[in-house]
């Protein structure tokens, strides 16, 4: 295998594939390459001189988009990003503190976002959605989360976790019934996989589903279900055949409210307090046979594939929170003076801001890449996990450092830094903990390297 790296200008970045026998090691040394993966700057002028076939293969791996599109988004995506940013700046950022303090669900804003198409970005227009791609969705979630992390969570859960599996695995009737009413912000859905006894250990689902005549009867408890108190439907995972272990799990669609389905108390969370999180309790909850989503026994596969996409959503949410924390810190660095000058002049502060910016930008490019691979219908499991891992760690890092830059002001609710710190924390946990992401990435890598 060869290697493809060269430098022309720092605004164009491409992902390059590494070689087991590094040639051009001087370049690599300059870019402090890791043995596994290198993010390099590709010279559009130089690459033809290196193995042209490799540059084509790298292009192919990036999907159908060209190299330059990572630096400069297509016009439609830029417009979409701008409109989401405008909305977040004008409608979400001013109320985010209040939503957080009073644990208020932003119902009106969710409806407005629904009218804009943000609650169903990937859903085809025929079903009531915006008919755009996953990259557009990632941009929307990032901008919305920059305004309000909780609202970003609501948007992400509805798009990726609720609509996502139904769009992929549902029958046309199921899509009409369970997607279309959830595209305009009037109704939101939720996703019930985790249980009190298993979060990361999703294969050990103990919620049971048995068939009784023309109905499924569900019994069990689901835990940590985001949006549940405000949701009108849920995708629930339950075991239909215990002997088959994780291959015996199936997915079901349950309307809310529904007899046999009750909600536990709202959790009092550290962050993203404008969303509700609670247990979902199923006690002889009866649903028609037609409410099974996908084939029997495919529940685990549905959950894992859904979470792959959901990871990009959460990575985008984390990016928004990280960016908001960074913006807050940079703004403060301009305004706060100490030792006779704005603190932005001090190297200690500058180094923090630089580290934060690099963390956010690199996570952003990983997220965009994962989204672009998904749009190109290529495998994106590893990239999605990398995106979620780097973005969530960037968010907690930026949240932490932002408070540090603000000093005492970072610790009080007058400034949003403390809210970003609290909102960021969950992104390393839900939809796959950072530890699970590492396992996923390692698993993919080891598969790629069958000697």
């Amino acid at each position, binding site marked *: 295998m060869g290697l493809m790296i060269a430098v022309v200008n720092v605004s164009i970045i491409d992902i390059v594939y590494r070689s087991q026998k590094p040639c051009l090691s001087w370049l690599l040394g300059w870019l402090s390459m890791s043995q596994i993966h290198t993010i390099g700057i590709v010279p559009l002028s130089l690459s033809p001189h290196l193995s042209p076939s490799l540059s084509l293969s790298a292009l192919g791996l990036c999907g159908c988009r060209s190299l330059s599109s990572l630096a400069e988004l297509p*016009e439609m995506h830029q417009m979409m990003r701008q*409109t989401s940013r405008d909305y977040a700046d004008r409608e979400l950022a001013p109320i985010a503190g209040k939503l957080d303090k009073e644990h208020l669900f932003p119902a009106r804003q969710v409806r407005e976002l629904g009218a804009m198409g943000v609650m169903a970005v990937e859903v085809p*227009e025929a079903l009531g959605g915006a008919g*755009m791609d996953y990259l557009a969705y990632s941009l929307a979630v990032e901008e919305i989360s920059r305004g309000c992390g909780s609202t970003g969570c609501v948007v992400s859960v509805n798009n990726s976790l609720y609509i996502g599996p139904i769009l992929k695995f549902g029958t046309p009737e199921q899509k009409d019934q369970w997607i279309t009413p959830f595209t305009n912000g009037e109704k939101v859905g939720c996703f019930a996989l985790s249980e009190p006894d298993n979060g990361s250990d999703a294969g050990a689902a103990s919620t049971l589903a048995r068939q009784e005549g023309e109905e499924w009867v569900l019994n069990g408890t689901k835990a940590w279900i985001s949006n549940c108190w405000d949701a009108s439907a849920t995708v629930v995972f339950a075991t239909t055949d215990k002997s088959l272990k994780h291959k015996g799990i199936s997915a079901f669609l349950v309307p809310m409210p529904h007899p046999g389905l009750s909600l536990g108390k709202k959790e009092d969370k550290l962050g993203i307090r404008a969303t509700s999180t609670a247990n979902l309790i199923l006690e002889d909850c009866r649903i028609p046979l037609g409410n099974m989503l996908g084939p029997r026994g495919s529940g685990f596969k549905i959950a894992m594939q859904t979470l792959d996409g959901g990871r990009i959503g959460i990575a985008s949410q984390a990016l928004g929170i990280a960016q908001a924390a960074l913006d807050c810190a940079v703004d403060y660095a301009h305004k706060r003076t100490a030792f006779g000058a704005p603190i932005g002049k001090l190297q200690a502060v500058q180094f923090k801001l630089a580290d934060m910016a690099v963390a956010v930008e690199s996570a952003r490019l990983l997220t965009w890449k994962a989204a672009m691979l998904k749009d190109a219908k290529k495998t994106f499991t590893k990239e999605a996990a990398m995106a979620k891992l780097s973005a969530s760690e960037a968010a907690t890092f930026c949240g932490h450092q932002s408070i540090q830059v603000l000093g005492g002001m970072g610790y009080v609710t007058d400034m949003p830094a403390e809210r970003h710190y609290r909102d960021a924390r969950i992104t390393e946990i839900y939809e796959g903990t950072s530890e699970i992401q590492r396992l996923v990435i390692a698993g993919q890598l080891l598969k790629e390297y069958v000697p």
Partner: protein
Amino acid sequence: MSRVLVGVKRVIDYAVKIRVKPDHSGVVTDGVKHSMNPFCEIAVEEAVKLKEKKFIKEVVAVSCGPTQVTETIRTALAMGCDRGIHVEVSGKDYEAMGPLQIAKIFAALAKKEEASLVILGKQAIDDDCNQTGQMTAALLDWPQGTFASEVTIDGEKVKVVREIDGGLETIKISMPAVLTADLRLNTPRYATLPNIMKAKKKKIANMKPADLGVDMVSRVEVLRVDEPPTRLAGVKVETVDDLVAKLKANGTI
């Protein structure tokens, strides 16, 4: 039925900190974020609203400038305009372009497109001229409803509530007419994602001022651009008498 022309101008975004070029010939525009003039957004919103209420049939968004202005036209299309017209002006002509040249272009287009209304923002936030609407009306010899805070179509006439120094003035003018939008006319909508998608398919026609018989020669020459003087610290006084004494002492009264 009727057709409305809406002018949209691409200006430096309102949130950007403006910097004067080192040679004082203008402000720095390279690499600076640009967006649609806020008053133009309000104009677009009003036109789209009139279309939704079925008073007019077609809204055409027009912008004059180099290739970049097509982004602004597309935003107008995403807000609901039906098609766009890009009048290409670039280089020295673009830098020297002012209300008179734009007014001539709009007057020519209004006649060519047989528009019943031309709706513009009251002024642009970069030059604050507040002249284009008035000049366009004069060139066309059409009535004008400027500083509009409320527009109602009543048959062949338009009722316009204008914000003037003394308060609110209501006038009734016959169409065709020129209106300029003031701040409180409406709240512009956010472009929805489906509309952004649809905007991609809407047509933007391309033409040059010469095609409309307009000469772009400017009779105005910008000599120098400077930042406003830095605001000096104020002086606090204890009593009204002190204030009057100080004002007298420095010749203000």
